[in-house]
């Protein structure tokens, strides 16, 4: 997939070679011309037209001068057709370095890697070889270098252009770890909800999106005491709310153009999570999450911390934390029979029993009796595909047979 640069100003767009052809077809010695060609390239349909003209040797003013003969003067009919050719000839006199400096000054600061240095082809007059005959047409000439596929190279893209998702890129799948993170999310959601309801005036710059969490912080925040009221609504002590908000606001919102940090997975092993989980009493799972604000913050935090997006359809039916956990924590996938018997049965220890983890294909059977290597060799000798039909399926074969 070819990526398009996300650029703020139109100036950069103009400076960037969008089409390598347009750039390459410019006279080598004049970068100013390149600029002009580029500006014209931004107009719709102009690039193909120019390209066509270049190939047809009609785009005289911007013809790539690979010949020793001086470029013939542009004839008037082409000049009329060509919008880009009415260039002030004085500008051509500008030196290349001068124009490059001007161009660079125009470029905004960016972390994109932009092709700057361009090697130029000697002018026909500079070529000492007397026998050199300039080409009259670009048709059939070999194309060298160029900027084709420049933006397909990921190294030319700055880190600011990388996609950073909101949720954790790699979903947390372990059950205990998910529960610990869900509790942390609940604690933070309670604190954020309190702030949302303007109970707290401090911590104005609370960022609800910090994603890096260290072990100590994870334990500290998720272990805050959650008080479940009679009606099920969870609350926390005031000082706990403050501490949580403080932890959340330790990071300022991301500045304009700054690279967002990638969310990092929790620094906790499943065993540690299980231990932590067992140290809490279970009534936090009875906490009601019917309050929309709480629910909103909770789901958002869960997405950020675990990478799981809980679909609205499922969220509708969830009334308390336990229900949410049952949506969040998937039961482990059932083992396949082959895996089950290899781990838990007497069968694999018997010498006369062979257990195959997958279907035994005809190729496997041929391999077991040693015939496959012969089949492979004979097929390769005849230039036939070893496996599959390589595009010559049943339909094609039928065509051959019926002669259609």
């Amino acid at each position, binding site marked *: 997939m070819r990526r398009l640069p996300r650029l703020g100003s139109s100036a950069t767009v103009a400076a960037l070679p969008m089409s390598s052809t347009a750039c390459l077809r410019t006279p080598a010695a004049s970068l100013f011309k390149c600029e002009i060609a580029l500006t014209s390239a931004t107009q719709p349909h102009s690039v193909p037209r120019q390209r066509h003209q270049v190939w047809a040797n009609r785009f005289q003013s911007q013809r790539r001068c690979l010949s020793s003969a001086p470029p013939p003067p542009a004839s008037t009919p082409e000049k009329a057709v060509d919008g880009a050719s009415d260039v002030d000839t004085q500008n051509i006199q500008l030196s290349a370095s001068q124009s490059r400096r001007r161009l660079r000054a125009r470029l905004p600061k960016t972390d994109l890697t932009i092709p700057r240095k361009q090697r130029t082809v000697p002018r026909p007059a500079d070529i000492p070889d007397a026998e050199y005959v300039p080409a009259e047409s670009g048709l059939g000439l070999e194309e060298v270098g160029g900027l084709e596929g420049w933006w397909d190279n990921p190294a030319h893209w700055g880190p600011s252009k990388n996609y950073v998702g909101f949720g954790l890129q790699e979903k947390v799948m372990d059950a205990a770890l998910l529960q610990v993170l869900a509790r942390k999310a609940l604690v933070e959601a309670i604190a954020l909800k309190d702030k949302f309801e303007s109970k707290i005036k401090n911590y104005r710059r609370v960022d609800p999106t910090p994603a890096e969490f260290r072990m100590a912080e994870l334990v500290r925040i998720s272990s805050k005491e959650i008080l479940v009221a009679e009606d099920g609504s969870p609350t926390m002590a005031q000082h706990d709310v403050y501490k949580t908000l403080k932890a959340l606001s330790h990071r300022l919102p991301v500045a304009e153009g700054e690279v967002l940090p990638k969310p990092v997975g929790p620094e906790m092993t499943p065993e540690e999570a299980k231990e932590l989980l067992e140290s809490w009493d279970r009534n936090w799972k009875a906490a009601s999450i019917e309050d929309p604000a709480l629910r909103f913050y909770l789901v958002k935090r869960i997405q950020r911390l675990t990478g799981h997006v809980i679909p609205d359809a499922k969220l509708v039916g969830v009334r308390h934390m336990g229900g949410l956990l049952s949506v969040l924590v998937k039961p482990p996938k059932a083992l396949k029979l082959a895996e089950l018997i290899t781990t838990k049965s007497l069968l694999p220890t018997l*010498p*006369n*029993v*062979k257990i*195959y*983890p*997958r279907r*035994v*294909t005809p*190729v*496997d059977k*041929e*391999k*077991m*009796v*040693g*015939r*496959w*290597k*012969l089949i*492979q060799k004979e097929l*390769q000798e005849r230039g036939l595909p*070893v*496996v599959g039909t390589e595009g010559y399926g049943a339909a094609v074969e039928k065509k051959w047979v019926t002669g259609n």
Partner: protein
Amino acid sequence: MRTSRPDQPFRAVRHQSTSALALDSALEATAADEPYDDGTDHVRFPPLERLPNATKLPSPLPERALTSAKLAALHARLSLPQKLPLQTLARALVDISADENPLFNNVNLAFVGQTITHYHVAEWLMCRYPRLPMTIMYAAMKAYAGDETLHSVARSWGVESAAEPGGEVDSGLLQFSMYKPVSHIGFGYGRKDNSRVEQGRWRRGIANRVLFDDDFGEQIGYDTRKKAQIPTSSQRTFSYGTEETRAAAERAHAAAVRAVVGSVYAHCGREAGKAFIRAHILSRTIDVSTLFEFKSPVVELARLCQREDFEPPVARLLSETGRLSRTPVFVVGIFSGKDKLGEAVAGNLDHARYKAAMNSLKSWYLYSPGENVRVPSEMLVEGSKAWEPTYIDIGEIIHG
């Protein structure tokens, strides 16, 4: 064969062919570490067994014997003792045409097995039928322990063969190549020039065969079936089910059976080997009287009576019916004095006399001291009874 390197300790690197010997051992090791490229999609169909680049090897590695269910089942099916390791059984299934390296094929085991088998079959036949003529003795030996018989023994064990030998093949399959020209190794004394015998310039009599030739009285390195037609190399590549391929399959199966006998003997000793032969080879049956083919039985019987100082044999008509009918029946008996030596029924008098003479000769030749005769090898057991001399015949009837 191996080049020892002073700076390197001995490594178990497999050199199975002369071309492999030329390779550097390190190079070969890396080649063997590469996974076996079979041209299939290894992501969709991960290999069932992690094989070394097995097409390079002529036969499976010995350690793969431990993972072969087929081999374990064969081991149990033959009731082989636990002392006999699966690796040896796997080696017994590798024919010389699959792997020429004697460290990995079954030639040595087959030699031991053949010696033991032939000894037991010969002593058993000799004690049981002491008067068998030498030609019939050879035929009976071949009927019990020949290639064709052992081929059917192997088939009755459920030994399956690989389509083509190679390192990726299951160790429980018999590995041999039908099309690889292999000089068939026969065990016995070879003659200096087989062609001279063929041309009739050298006489090859019975006494001669006892001295030379193999245990079945057949020339070493000379296949009687080869005379029929020797296929060209192109025929050999593309034809199935020819005389040659059948002979190659028989040889390979027989060698495998002999190798199993040899490995039983080598790992479990003499008595186990003997019991194995009794159970699988001597327990088979054949009517020995069907092996005879007489040229002139009447003359031969007369010579016999002369030699044994019996009265000369006389044919007498015992009963008859329908002499003038379409299907007459004559019952003719041969008498020596008052003793009836044999009788036969036939459609005419001459035929009946011939048949009666044949029956008389067979009853002489097939004298047997009993089903369960003692054989010399029983004396090898500690504390066995004293040996009673067994009956030994003076020899077959020779006439001009």
